[in-house]
């Protein structure tokens, strides 16, 4: 029962439709959080944990990481901000426990990423963890962070993505939550541009009113249309909808599969011009279709050989 769990090597590019946050100090929550099917679970040492309980939360986190088999579910740790006395110890514990990655709270610059990276490396050496194993993601929680998004996205090879953290960001911007999302629309757009330019993933902030499923659905659909890779969530009840929206439909998968097959046949026959079902098709569409099949496969809705 108490065997030491060794987690598989983290993948920088993987399916991350949902990141479910939970207090690392709550054994009842973290003991089997993977059963709900989120792609990533985020064990939180920051806002969910009271100032006086940071040490207890780290203790609980370490034992969770080393004794609970989370299987294929990615396990990340949200550390405390770099302006607190906690973050260095947070990193040591997360790395020692074998977490897949660390989420930097309130990241504002490339230097913040590099500072965390340096401490991760020190911890990997200290605890005999494979160097470079531990991934990084950055949470942008201020106007400054969003403005510096591109340098943050390109600051480290370990960094797989950025996320907007709406609560603090709205405070910084002096705006309130709106139904349309206009309050953080510009930030979403800037962050997405930076992430795509840097070739990393991009995640939207959580939707706090988890009883308002209609508002949540509207926001998730908008996230998907804007090009996000996934979303932070705070309740297991939000998982199914995000996965539905972010998973290609059977119709899309079917279309993509036919398109890629048609391309493969014509390419191997040395055909220069690519036609698909009577229409001329741009090669870029083939790449889109290939990406879609990859996403479909990772989401478990495509089992073909492409």
């Amino acid at each position, binding site marked *: *029962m108490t065997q030491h769990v060794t987690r598989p090597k983290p993948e920088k590019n993987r399916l991350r439709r949902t990141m479910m946050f939970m207090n690392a100090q709550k054994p009842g929550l973290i003991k*089997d959080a993977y*059963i*709900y099917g989120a792609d990533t679970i985020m064990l939180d040492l920051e806002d969910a944990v009271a100032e006086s309980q940071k040490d207890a939360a780290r203790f609980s986190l370490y034992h969770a990481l080393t004794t609970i088999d989370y299987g294929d579910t990615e396990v990340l740790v949200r550390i405390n901000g770099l302006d607190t006395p906690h973050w260095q110890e947070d990193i040591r514990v997360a790395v020692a426990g074998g977490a897949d990655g660390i989420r930097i709270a309130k990241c504002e610059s490339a230097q913040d990423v590099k500072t965390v990276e340096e401490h991760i490396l020190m911890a990997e050496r200290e605890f005999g963890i494979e160097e470079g194993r531990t991934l990084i993601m950055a949470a942008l929680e201020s106007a400054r962070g969003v403005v510096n998004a591109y340098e943050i996205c390109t600051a480290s090879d370990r960094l797989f993505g950025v996320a907007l953290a709406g609560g603090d960001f709205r405070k910084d911007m002096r705006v309130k939550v709106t139904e349309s999302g206009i309050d953080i629309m510009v930030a979403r757009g800037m962050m997405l541009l930076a992430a795509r330019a840097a070739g990393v993933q991009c995640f939207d902030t959580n939707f706090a009113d988890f009883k308002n499923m209609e508002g949540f659905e509207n926001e998730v659909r908008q996230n998907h249309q804007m090009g996000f890779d996934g979303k932070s969530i705070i*309740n*297991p*009840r939000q998982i*199914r909808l995000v996965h539905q929206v972010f998973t290609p439909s059977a119709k899309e998968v079917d279309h993509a599969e036919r398109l890629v097959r048609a391309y493969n046949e014509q390419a191997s026959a040395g055909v220069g011009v690519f036609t698909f079902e009577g229409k001329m098709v741009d090669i870029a569409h083939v790449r889109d279709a290939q990406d879609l099949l990859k996403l479909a496969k990772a989401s*478990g*809705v495509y089992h073909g050989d492409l």
Partner: protein
Amino acid sequence: MINAVGRDIPEELLADGKEVYQGKNHFDGTYVQKVAPKTRRCETPQDGKLCATIREACERCGAHDGMTVSFHHHFRNGDKTAAAVMKVLVEDMGLKDITIAATSLGDAHNNVADYIEQGKVIGIQSSGVRGRIGEVISAGKLKTPAIIRSHGGRPRAIEAGEVHIDIAFLAAATADECGNASGTGGKSNCGSLGYAIGDSRWADKVVVITDTLVDYPNQPASISQIDVDAVVVVDEIGDPAKIGSKEARVSQDPRELKMAEAVADVIAATPYFKDGFSFQTGVGGPSLAANQFIEKHMEERGIKMGFSLGGITGLVCNLQKKGLIKKIVDVQDFDNNAVADMGENPQHFEISASEYANPANKGAYVNKLDFVVLAALEVDTDFNVNVITGSDGVVRGAPGGHPDTAAASKCSIIVTPLTRGRMATVCEKVVTVTTPGDCVDVVVTDYGIAVNPLRPDLIECLDNAGIPHVTIEELKDKAYQLVGEPDPLQWDDQVVAVVEARDGSILDVIRKIKPYTFE
């Protein structure tokens, strides 16, 4: 003798043609000779059924030592009638050697535990045995082994004469002076009187006990005057507020909701999920919550439920009000919303326990059931379910309609968390078999779904719908990995209870428990 679920049944219990369990539907198509009650003729005009006290009614009905009495449990934990009658019989009249053949017994009847300890009550035949009664039975204090029967097995046993009820004491929300009685319209309503109907027809003497006497004739009546010997008016027959512990409240617990959603997905993946389907659910958190997810699937497909069966909750009544259920067929009400609906909704029908679930009549309602969603204390790797004994081996539950609906429905689904505290719910061998594994089709847990290999058709349905599932052994291994494998319980030889299968054969026995000591 080892029966079909691998339980060793002591030979001495196999007297008088009693058989061990040999698989579901073993007696299908065979014949049974029903018995009939002894009835006192009343040829002259009379107005003499009203009695001033319970004692007067008992005396008039010839209450005597060694008799068998019956009660229904429609007021569940709020029942006040059975305890009051037993007090009169034992404490006021000094009777002894009494057997109680109730539809269920629980916390409302703790005085019966005292009478068992005093040797005044020597037999218990019931679906459920909770509270202190279960504890004294498990401690070996009842003179004869208790007999546990399902809600369908009980009317079968009564009609076949295996249980002969001398006096049935039946609480009714309203009654008239001749005994026409109903579960609605009074000050203490319980809705359906489904479990009482059979007793009123098969007991030699029937006493109706009410707190609301109404003008003659009290119609529509669940219990007819032609079967009633005496009517007693008391202050309060029961507390309806205690009928439902979970008043139509849907769980917000993510774990229960996850299981409920999985149950609904399984249902929607089968070919039985089509317009006019039928459905029954228990009152556990995930079972109740399954209703809302099934509602979504029904709306998506544009289909309606033909009928909802069984213990009825307000949630089911609400679905019907939305137009999603055509008819409600009700043997028992689980909360006050359902009780109220029973009294006012013309598409909400009362049926007797025999109509509901008896395998030895010409076809019960459960035979028309497509889906049933049920809870479990334990499920083992042979899909056997235990809902009667706790992890300490003490009797503390009730099969109710569990074995009947599981056996007769087209798709029976057990929903349970994989662990409860440190107890593995999915295990190697259940403590007691109450529903045999050949009646259980799907097990849904928070850690995954397992389908009984006896149902390859359902496995194919799940595969086609892309619903992941694992073997029951994998679920058991996961449970043991999480909480460890429990040591076996320590038993004495003495059999304290016999668990009858719904067909009357013996499914399992419960023995006296030895107090656990650490070595």
